[in-house]
Structures are given as structure tokens and as C-alpha cells.
């Protein structure tokens, strides 16, 4: 099936009544959680994972999950601009100039350019995804166990190094995630690992309990500590459609943000946060008036908001073509696919073209829906901030508890979710970034299987990883990354400066 035939097939699937409804639901939920500070897209998708058991069709479930992810990028800018409070991590940088614009009475223009930039970048990235993903999937068909081992380990390492937090803590979480994935029956030897005599643990931890615990409840517990109250918004929005001058000032920022976001989104660990930061830095560096940045420069809103949207769409490329989730939210979508009995990877295009093309086509539709949802209806979303956290928190707890119980109808899952909630809370308290945990958990079995299969194939010859061209290249990048990071760390220490973070 060529790209155009696939896309037409995708639209015929995405444009059915049920799929349009779930795409809309995903866009609405995504915008809502993007607006609400304290609940990110990864947490929300985690909370909704049990719903995928109920939604019969895999394509419908993934259309909704994808809508939540890229919808959150649209909604995230709203609180950044109006309250100087990022709705989610990728919108942190939007606070700098967005809030300044709002203080100068230009909140409407900032919100408008954020939504238009998001729409353009989202669409550009989906076009890139349409044409880039199928050839990459075809290329990945040649991958064997050594290539998969090299790719997954490099992906995990990139996720740790690019997350922006402490590398030591990131690596610790990575190993913890790998170990959690090993609990239960070893699929190759049949041995029982880390169960301590528990029969229920023999099946291993369920990803839903881990994701809902660490991301859903862990975030709730951490937010419960906070004494911060959301102020009721009094900022006057004004006209949400930008003027011609606003458009002229921001069109290149949108274009650059789209390109930067698209490429950073493909790299595991890259994602929306880094792309928005990179876009802001580039806009400031190449601006004719860098002094305006921080005082309400519209490019400071247009660039990062475009970049985070493009990255959220392009991060589907490694998932759909290689079966490698690049960030926590995509790891949740990976799990949703697995729940539906679909293994993401190079065979997805050939074996499940309905899922592959249906989801891609739905992204075009979802982006158009989000533009409508965010431009004229921004005032409505702002009203959502009036919902007190005291009501929202117990509702989320009820939702997660019955949600996790519904997966296997056993209370053990609730307890294991609470264990992960405590773990997630502790991680946040000690400044650990929890993002590598679900990645390591979902990629753990693939890492182990490919490592052991490679050694079996080669008869214990470790050079199998470096003598094959693709795995050799990936291992070289892996080694360069470790050497580079170590050299950077030592140089900083020798220079007498503090390390970035421990």
C-alpha cells in the first residue's frame, strides 16, 4: 500500500462516527488537562488506560489517547499566558513572554498565536509523519536482536541524558524500571524472579498499575503538599485573532519551531519540553531585537508553542515504526496498543494498516478540532481553573482505584498501584524525574530478550553488536554519548564548578 492509498484508507477509518467522537473526546480531555496545572498528559493517559479494555477497537482507543497527548500541548499554553503557571511541562517557557503579553493587555493575541502556531506545527509534523514513517518502518524490517538491543539501550540512555534532570538519578530510575519489568516469570528459562513467594506477582506487575500509581496518584500526592491556590482569572482576553503584524512577526518563528520540534520529537527522550526550550533559545539568539524577549515578544510564544506541538506529533514516529516509545506519554500509548494485542514496530504498517493510517489521519482531524476548541472557546477553558483541587483530587483517586480494579477484578492491583504511588511521590520529593521509569518498564523485556537472543545466535561472541553495520553505528553513538557525558562531567568538576544536579 503506497502512502497516498494508505492515507485515504486512514481517513475512511478516522472519519467514521465513533472515531470522530473519540478523537473529539481526546482533544477535549487533552485541552482540559493541558489547562489544569498539576496533571500532565502522561498521567491522564495512564488514568484512562483501563478504558482501553472497554473500547473494543484498538484504532479508536489510540485515536483518543493520541488526541489527549497533542491536545495537552494546545491547552498547556493557556495557564502559562494567563496565570504565569504552566499547565504542563512543555509550556514552561511560554510563561516568560506569554505572561508579559497578557500583562500588557495582549493575552488574546498570545493565546491566538499559540493556537495558530500549534495548529500549523501539528499539521506540518503529521505531514512529516505521513511521509517519514513508512520508509523508516520498511528499513527497520531488517533489524534483528542485536539491532534491537542497540536501539533500545541507546533510546533509554538518550531518554535519561536528554530529560534535563540529573543523569545519575535518571540512570538509577532506568535500572529500577528494568528490574520492575523482570518481576515474575522469565519468558526464556521459565524461572520465577523477584516474587518472594507471592503467586499474584508471578504474572509480573501490570503496566497500568505502574503508570497510574507513579504518574496519576504520585502526582496527586505531591500536589496535596502544596499550599498554592489557583487565583481566579480576571485577565481580560481581548481579541484572540492575531493582527497582520503579529502574524508577520511570528510566521518564521512558527516555521522554525515546527522544524525544530519535528526533529527533536523523533529522538527518544527529546519530546515537547526540550523542543520548546530549544526553539525559545534559537528565536532569542537570531532575533533582531533579543532585548524584547522576556518583555512580551510574540516570537517567544509562537516558536516554543509550535515546537512542542510538532514534537508531540513526531514522537509517534519511533513508536509506530520501531516500537520504541520516546517519552512517558508515548510509553502509555505503547501500553494501550499492547493491551489491545497490537505490538508496535516495523510490522505495524503491514499487519495493522487500519491502526497505523487511521491514527495518522485522525491527527489531521484532531489538529483542526483543537484549533476550533482553542481559539474561540479559550474563555470557556479558563473557567475550568475555578474547579478546586479539593474536589478534583478525590475524583481522580476514585477514578484510578475503580479503573485499576476493573483490569483484572482483583484488589491486589489497587495495592500495587498504591505502592507505585508512594514510589512516584518519593521520586518527586527527591527530585527524580519519573519519565525513564515507564520507558524502562515497557522496553525492559525487549532489552533482555534481544540481549539473550543475540548472545545465543553468536555463541557468546560479543562482537555481534559491533560488527553488524546498524547495531555497530548505534553502539558507537551509545559509547560516544557516555564518553561525552563523562568528559563533560569531569571537565565541570575540574573547573571547580558545581555539577548541574545530583
Amino acid at each position, binding site marked *: 500500500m503506497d502512502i497516498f492509498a494508505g492515507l485515504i484508507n486512514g481517513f475512511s477509518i478516522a472519519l467514521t462516527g465513533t472515531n470522530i467522537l473519540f478523537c473529539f473526546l481526546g482533544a477535549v480531555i487533552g485541552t482540559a488537562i493541558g489547562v489544569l496545572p498539576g496533571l500532565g498528559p502522561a498521567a491522564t493517559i495512564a488514568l484512562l488506560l483501563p478504558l482501553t479494555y472497554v473500547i473494543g477497537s484498538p484504532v479508536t482507543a489510540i485515536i483518543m489517547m493520541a488526541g489527549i497527548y497533542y491536545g495537552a500541548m494546545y491547552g498547556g499554553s493557556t495557564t502559562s499566558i494567563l496565570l504565569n503557571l504552566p499547565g504542563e511541562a512543555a509550556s514552561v517557557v511560554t510563561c516568560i513572554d506569554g505572561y508579559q503579553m497578557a500583562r500588557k493587555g495582549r493575552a488574546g493575541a498570545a493565546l491566538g498565536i499559540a493556537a495558530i502556531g500549534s495548529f500549523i506545527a501539528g499539521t506540518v509534523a503529521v505531514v512529516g509523519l505521513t511521509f517519514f514513517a513508512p520508509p523508516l518502518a520498511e528499513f527497520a524490517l531488517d533489524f534483528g536482536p542485536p539491532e534491537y538491543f542497540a536501539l533500545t539501550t541507546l533510546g533509554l540512555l538518550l531518554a535519561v541524558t536528554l530529560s534535563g534532570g540529573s543523569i545519575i538519578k535518571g540512570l538509577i530510575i532506568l535500572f529500577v524500571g528494568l528490574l520492575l519489568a523482570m518481576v515474575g516469570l522469565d519468558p526464556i528459562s521459565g524461572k520465577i524472579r523477584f516474587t518472594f513467594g507471592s503467586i499474584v506477582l508471578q504474572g509480573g506487575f501490570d503496566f497500568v498499575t505502574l503508570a497510574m500509581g507513579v504518574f496519576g496518584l504520585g502526582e*496527586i500526592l505531591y500536589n496535596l503538599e502544596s499550599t498554592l491556590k489557583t487565583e481566579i482569572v480576571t485577565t481580560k482576553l481581548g481579541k484572540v485573532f492575531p493582527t497582520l503584524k503579529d502574524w508577520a512577526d511570528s510566521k518564521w518563528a512558527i516555521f522554525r519551531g515546527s522544524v525544530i520540534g519535528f526533529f527533536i520529537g523523533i529522538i527518544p527522550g527529546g519530546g515537547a519540553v526540550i523542543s520548546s526550550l530549544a526553539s525559545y533559545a534559537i528565536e532569542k539568539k537570531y532575533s533582531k531585537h533579543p532585548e524584547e524577549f522576556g518583555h512580551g515578544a510574540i516570537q517567544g510564544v509562537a516558536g516554543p508553542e509550535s515546537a512542542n506541538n510538532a514534537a508531540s506529533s513526531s514522537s509517534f514516529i519511533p513508536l509506530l515504526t520501531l516500537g520504541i516509545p520516546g517519552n512517558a506519554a508515548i510509553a502509555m500509548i505503547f501500553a494501550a496498543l499492547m493491551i489491545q494485542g497490537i505490538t508496535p514496530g516495523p510490522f505495524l504498517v503491514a499487519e495493522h494498516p487500519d491502526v497505523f493510517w487511521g491514527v495518522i489521519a485522525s491527527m489531521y482531524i484532531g489538529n483542526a478540532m483543537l484549533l476550533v476548541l482553542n481559539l474561540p472557546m479559550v474563555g470557556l477553558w479558563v473557567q475550568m481553573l475555578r474547579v478546586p483541587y479539593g474536589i478534583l483530587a478525590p475524583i481522580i483517586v476514585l477514578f484510578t482505584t475503580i479503573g485499576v480494579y476493573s483490569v483484572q477484578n482483583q484488589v491486589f492491583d489497587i495495592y500495587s498501584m498504591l505502592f507505585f504511588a508512594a514510589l512516584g511521590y518519593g521520586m518527586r520529593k527527591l527530585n527524580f524525574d519519573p519519565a525513564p521509569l515507564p520507558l524502562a518498564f515497557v522496553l525492559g523485556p525487549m532489552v533482555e530478550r534481544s540481549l539473550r537472543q543475540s548472545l545465543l545466535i553468536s555463541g*557468546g561472541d560479543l562482537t555481534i553488536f559491533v560488527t553488524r553495520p546498524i547495531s555497530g553505528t548505534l553502539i558507537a553513538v551509545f559509547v560516544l554519548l557516555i564518553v561525552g557525558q563523562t568528559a563533560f562531567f569531569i571537565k565541570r568538576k575540574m573547573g571547580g564548578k558545581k555539577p548541574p544536579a545530583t
Partner: protein
Amino acid sequence: MKKYERITAIITSLGGVWIMVYAWRTLKLGSIHIPDAGLLPFLCGVGLAILGIVWLLVLQQTKGEDKGVEEKRIWYRPVISLILMVIYGWAMESVGYITSTLLFVIAWQKVIEREKWLKTMIISLLGTFAMYALFVYLLKVPIPPEFFAR
């Protein structure tokens, strides 16, 4: 914060060593030709043991305390809510879904949020009804039956 980080670093290292021993003795590493179930856990254990020590060394060399969190934080609210959730999980099977959910939201609103009784009851009843309607009525999720209906 540094004190807790030091403790976590030590636990990480010791945990890594324990995993190495467990993987070596119980799971078995196998050979490089035919690796066994303990190989990757052993490597992860080695990684954790080393990272714990590196973290500890970095903490030793970092002078001064962390800035800490500027905003005032209340530590007991998450602890109490976690305890409430554990009790809720137990009560769900013991007394049934509807009764335990209602009691859980009442306890949450009174203990965590310190709300007045009228608001507490409205939120509890509406919350329980909404969950029942969504999961039981719409999504047909089987729930633990009520203790009085068994």
C-alpha cells in the same frame, strides 16, 4: 534534602549489591554462550551499586545545602491520603464498592480538605453516584457487592 539523598544513595548501593547476590545465587547467570535468568538483573544490580556510590561521592563534594522548596509544603496530607487509600482498597472488598466509596470521599473531605458537613455530603454523594454511573452503568465494570446484599 541532602540528608535524605545520602540515605537514598546508600539504600540504592546496598539494594544493588543485594540484587547482584540474588541474581548470582538464586537466578544463576548462566554462561556467555547461554545466558540465564540472572544475567540482566545482575548487570542492573552492578549499575545500581556503582551509581549509589557515585551519587554519594558527588553529594560529598557538593558544598552547601540545597535551596529547598521555597513554597510551604504540608507533608502530612499525602501521608494521610495514602493511608486512606489503603483502607479504601481493603474496604472495597470487605463492605462493598458503593459504601466504601461514599465513606472514602467523606473521610477525604473531612480529614484532608477539612470541609463543612453539607459540602462534604454533597461532594461525596455526587462523586459516588458519578463513579457508579460511569463504571457500573455505562462501562459495565463488575464491582465488589455491598456487605448487606451478599
